[in-house]
């Protein structure tokens, strides 16, 4: 394998940042030890020791992203000509596609193109989660849905993973097939060794980086990787959970600690529910945005009529578990969880998803 010394990491990142946007984990000042993935610029610190409080999913699924901007322009006003000329798509009132009233134009301004991005220092669980999200969003030219903005970002993304040689009590990636040695989603993997990191190219994109002058040949052996907590039988949940669906007592019991905040979903690297909303600035200009949404919020499935098909916390929690371990595996062929443990570390009510999964497996065994 190739080797890069710890001292050369900032220089490596600087070289990458000259041609790409680089994201790296760092502890935010005055945040009580919060570690987040942030835009890295030369001179910025990096925290490769602690687990990040949030995942890096912003890189492929931003908290809020602009789908497009729009402007209403009215025929005859001095406003309309200039805007029509600067916009890239104009739906004029006399064309076939125009929904607008007479004399009105809607000018659509597309979102900025996705930048070329390097995600540095994620763990194997987070890299894997990008592949899990790809199953839903990124199917260019293939079967299934393809989200153009997601796949454009994905296309320009290089993932450099830091392999875990240690873990904490919230980690449970070893419950999944490859555990800490998972390579899916990574382009390049760095293994911590004395004085630096061994580097392994996983994809062509990652392998190319190894020819940069920061890397040298090495005879060192890669270190043993972390072995985390294991829950046996997670793949069986896909068959078990439908049988528990109507057992509302079960869902009430397992969710009774929950206070219904959205941290478990927002901290999660695989949760991807979103809301699409228009935000106006004044009465002529606006943006159509896509923002994170969370199934744990009471308003999440509230219908316009006022009816909510998931009226209680137990209903909502049932959906969270089923989506992760039943619906998504059924529809996309991947469990919507990689065992990163963030929902456990960050839960304000000490709710541990592993207890719920064990209870579900146990309840099935009893029947």
């Amino acid at each position: 394998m190739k080797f890069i010394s710890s001292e050369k990491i900032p220089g490596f990142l600087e070289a990458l940042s000259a041609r790409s946007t680089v994201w790296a984990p760092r502890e935010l000042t005055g945040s009580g030890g919060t570690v987040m993935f942030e835009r890295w610029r030369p001179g910025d610190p990096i925290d490769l020791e602690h687990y990040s409080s949030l995942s890096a999913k912003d890189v492929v699924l931003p908290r809020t992203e602009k789908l497009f901007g729009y402007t209403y322009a009215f025929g005859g006003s001095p406003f309309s000509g200039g805007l029509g000329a600067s916009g890239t798509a104009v739906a004029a009132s006399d064309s076939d596609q125009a929904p607008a009233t007479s004399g009105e134009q809607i000018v659509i301004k597309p979102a900025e193109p996705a930048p070329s991005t390097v995600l540095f220092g994620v763990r194997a669980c987070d890299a894997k989660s990008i592949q899990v999200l790809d199953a839903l969003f990124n199917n260019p030219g293939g079967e299934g849905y393809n989200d153009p903005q997601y796949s454009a970002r994905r296309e320009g993304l290089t993932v450099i993973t830091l392999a875990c040689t240690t873990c904490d009590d919230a980690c449970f990636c070893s419950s999944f097939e490859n555990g800490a040695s998972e390579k899916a989603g990574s382009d390049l993997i760095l293994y911590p060794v004395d004085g630096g990191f061994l580097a392994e190219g996983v994809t062509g994109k990652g392998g190319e980086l190894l020819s940069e002058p920061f890397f040298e040949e090495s005879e060192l052996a890669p270190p043993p990787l972390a072995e985390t907590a294991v829950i046996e039988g997670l793949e069986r949940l896909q068959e078990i959970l439908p049988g528990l669906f109507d057992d509302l007592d079960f869902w009430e019991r397992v969710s009774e600690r929950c206070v219904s905040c959205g941290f478990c979903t927002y901290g999660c690297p695989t949760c991807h529910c979103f809301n699409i909303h228009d935000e106006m600035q004044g009465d002529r200009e606006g943006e159509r945005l896509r923002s994170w949404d969370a199934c744990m919020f009471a308003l999440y499935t509230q219908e316009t009529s006022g009816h909510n098909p998931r009226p209680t916390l137990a209903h909502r929690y049932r959906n969270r578990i089923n989506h992760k371990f039943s619906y998504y595996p059924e529809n996309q062929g991947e469990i919507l969880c990689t065992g990163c443990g963030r929902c456990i570390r960050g839960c304000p009510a000490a709710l541990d998803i592993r207890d719920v999964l064990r209870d579900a497996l146990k309840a099935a065994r009893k029947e």
Partner: protein
Amino acid sequence: MSELVSTIQKVLAETGLVLGWSATGAGGVAAPERFHTAEEAEVAIFDSTCVHNLSVHLPRLKGRAVGIVAKACDARSIVELIAEREVDGDQVRVIEVSCTDTLDVKAIWRRYGYGALIEDDGSELRVNGEPVEREAFVQAKCLDCEDRQPATPAGKPVPSGSKPANARQQLREDFQAMSVGERRAFWREQYARCIRCHACREACPMCYCRDVCIMQTTDPHWTGGGINTAEAEMMQLIRVNHLAGRCTACGECERACPVGIPLMLLMEEQNRAIEEMFDYRAGVDPEAKPPLLTFDIKGDSWDGE
């Protein structure tokens, strides 16, 4: 059997449900629990890792009898919920536990890893078997607590002089010294990392508006749906205003925040102002009329028109 367990069991005979803690959290720290039977209640504990304010569950359990294990600060939330008629005082049995202080478990685990073994005998705090500076890991709210009972009869001397005793007091002093512009810049930097998970709201016993909370509704549309600094700022201004004269300073918003925004700094400032203006502290008297709930309602609307 501990006195706490037998008290819970006695209350259970009347209510059929008691909110308390067991030691089933990671590394044996406290986790919130619902006890329905005397047998279930045998695992009940109270120690310095019982950080949660369990009264947040009371509005959700409206209409049924419930017992609740509460620290003095949690009890203030219960009193305020009763004063606001959100909770029926006749239905709630409070089992008050005496408390010296509680630990910032999250801060300990951020430093030493999630699940690190925490041992606390009330004076010495050990993490993974090694003694650590206790004061650094006591919840900020506990250091100022008026109900705090010293661990030893002699207690510790109250720090005096100009040196702040802890990081929170330092932050408070730094904040006081800021100009209005600097304060705005300070908060904007803090809000920049808000992910709008609403943990501050959901962990707050006084935030019981649930699905009609205007931090999220589209009608009225007081905040946009985006997750950004401006919306986070608007959200917190709404929250602070809605908690004026209602916040009991339990600190749960700040404890629940996954990105460490010092939300109590805002609340403390306001609580101080409310006390000065109205001579009122929330959560002290269940018969009190909260100052901002004294609308003169005539007819169907607040202004009587």
